[in-house]
């Protein structure tokens, strides 16, 4: 019944590393959209900063022939998620739309899921979130402000999915491809991040994931992520493009 109501979507993302310029616009957009607490210097130094999406930067080659490589990493919404079976209260589970859902009001803060996640994309609220007075009215009313003691992570901007679904249903039509954009993908200036429905064979993301450059992160763990990466194309390099993923 549930899947029928939601129209049998399978949300996912295709990240084209070749287009990523490491500008961090997605990080800022996500921070603002999802009421993520501010990462003060104190919190970063303690290794307790929260960032639902991050840009990892790697240097390649020796000076002066160095190259910066960027890779945006957010919750991979794994089909076979290591975080889900360890939760004792079912606060995280897989829903019928392919989303790895975090239910804030169920979470009791055991942090087992964060230990289980190989991508390090789950974050624990060690403190009650505070914002300076000037930012209080900037909070997104569509997103819960997470209190102290619970886990949080990328939700694939599920509030945007809900809003678009509602709009489509009130207009009595199907969701259009590209109608839903997450905060990060709408902020990306080079369209490196692409959000869409993998169940629709004609959607943009379904077409993109057929690219021979595609790979998933840490595929040795067989987590079957819903985030597909397209490898960097480097004309200087002698190795094939498909091997770029395993190259450090």
């Amino acid at each position: 019944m549930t899947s029928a109501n939601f129209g049998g979507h399978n949300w996912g993302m295709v990240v084209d590393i070749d287009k990523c310029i490491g500008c961090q616009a997605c990080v800022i957009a996500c921070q603002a959209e999802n009421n993520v607490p501010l990462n003060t210097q104190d919190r970063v130094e303690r290794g307790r900063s929260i960032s639902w999406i991050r840009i990892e930067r790697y240097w390649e080659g020796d000076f002066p022939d160095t190259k910066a490589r960027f890779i945006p990493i957010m919750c991979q919404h794994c089909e076979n998620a290591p975080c889900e079976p360890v939760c004792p209260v079912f606060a995280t589970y897989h829903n019928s739309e392919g989303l790895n859902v975090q239910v804030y009001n169920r979470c009791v803060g055991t942090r087992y899921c964060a230990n289980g996640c190989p991508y390090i994309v789950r974050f624990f609220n060690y403190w009650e979130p505070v914002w300076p007075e000037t930012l209080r009215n900037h909070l997104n009313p569509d997103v819960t402000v997470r209190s102290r003691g619970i886990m949080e992570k990328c939700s694939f901007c599920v509030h945007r999915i809900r809003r678009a679904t509602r709009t489509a249903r009130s207009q009595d039509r199907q969701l259009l491809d590209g109608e839903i954009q997450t905060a990060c993908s709408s902020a990306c200036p080079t369209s490196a991040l692409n959000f869409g429905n993998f169940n629709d064979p004609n959607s943009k993301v379904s077409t993109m994931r057929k690219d021979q450059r595609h790979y998933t992160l840490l595929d040795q763990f067989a987590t079957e992520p819903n985030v597909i990466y397209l490898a960097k194309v480097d004309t200087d390099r002698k190795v094939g493009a498909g091997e770029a993923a395993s190259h450090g």
Partner: protein
Amino acid sequence: MASDNEGSKNKSSSLPKLLIPVLGIGGLGVMAVMGIVAAFVFTGWLGQPVPVLGFEQTFDQPINFPHTIHASTKQLDYVPADGLSTMEGLGLDCTFCHRTVTTQANAGVPPVAFCATCHQAIGAADNPELIILRDAANLTNSKGQSAAQIEELLDSGVAAEKLDGPEPVNWKRVHRLPDHVRFVHEPHIRYLTQNPGEIKGTTDGVTEGAAGVCSTCHGNVAAMKQVEQVEPLKMGQCVDCHRDNGAPTDCVACHY
């Protein structure tokens, strides 16, 4: 030796004798406290929370807005401030004031300027509630100056900050949900409008249209002089209704 033994026996038996009533009363007290706690928990659990938890309470609003006059079609059972004891309710639809309820998440409380479109002409000048309203809508200020007078003063060179500006009315919210719940009015109104058979609640003295739909969760607001929460609005109630109507019961349908 024997007397010693007797003495110690007496001592050891007299101490518990003193403690028995103390322990008995203490035990009864603990049982009573546990019983009260259990009753409290069970009332909460069964969805009929005791008033201590904040349900079924009304608030004194900054302006005593009577829904009876505006929304009901019945004759009022009290004398309004204007003394119009024979007055009948106007029978306005809920959406007349709560304009965004059919399209948005929030029902929306109208700005005082919206109230003022009627109340600059309707209602007695000495009605204490309407004085507050007209002040807030900047039709008059707290010095009793009308909008035209304020305009004149401004034209004559008085600095604007010396005149009392409009202040929004700080309405108190009656129907509150926790922050981890995202309730959107629009799909609920749409579904119940299309399926009037699923409407629960009374529509007695309420006009046709949205009011009947709204009564499913809000009760017969048109009959309330002061709005109160009549349904517990707890998750069990939401889920029951969602199950009955084939609506999604996925956690992330509401919690995100």
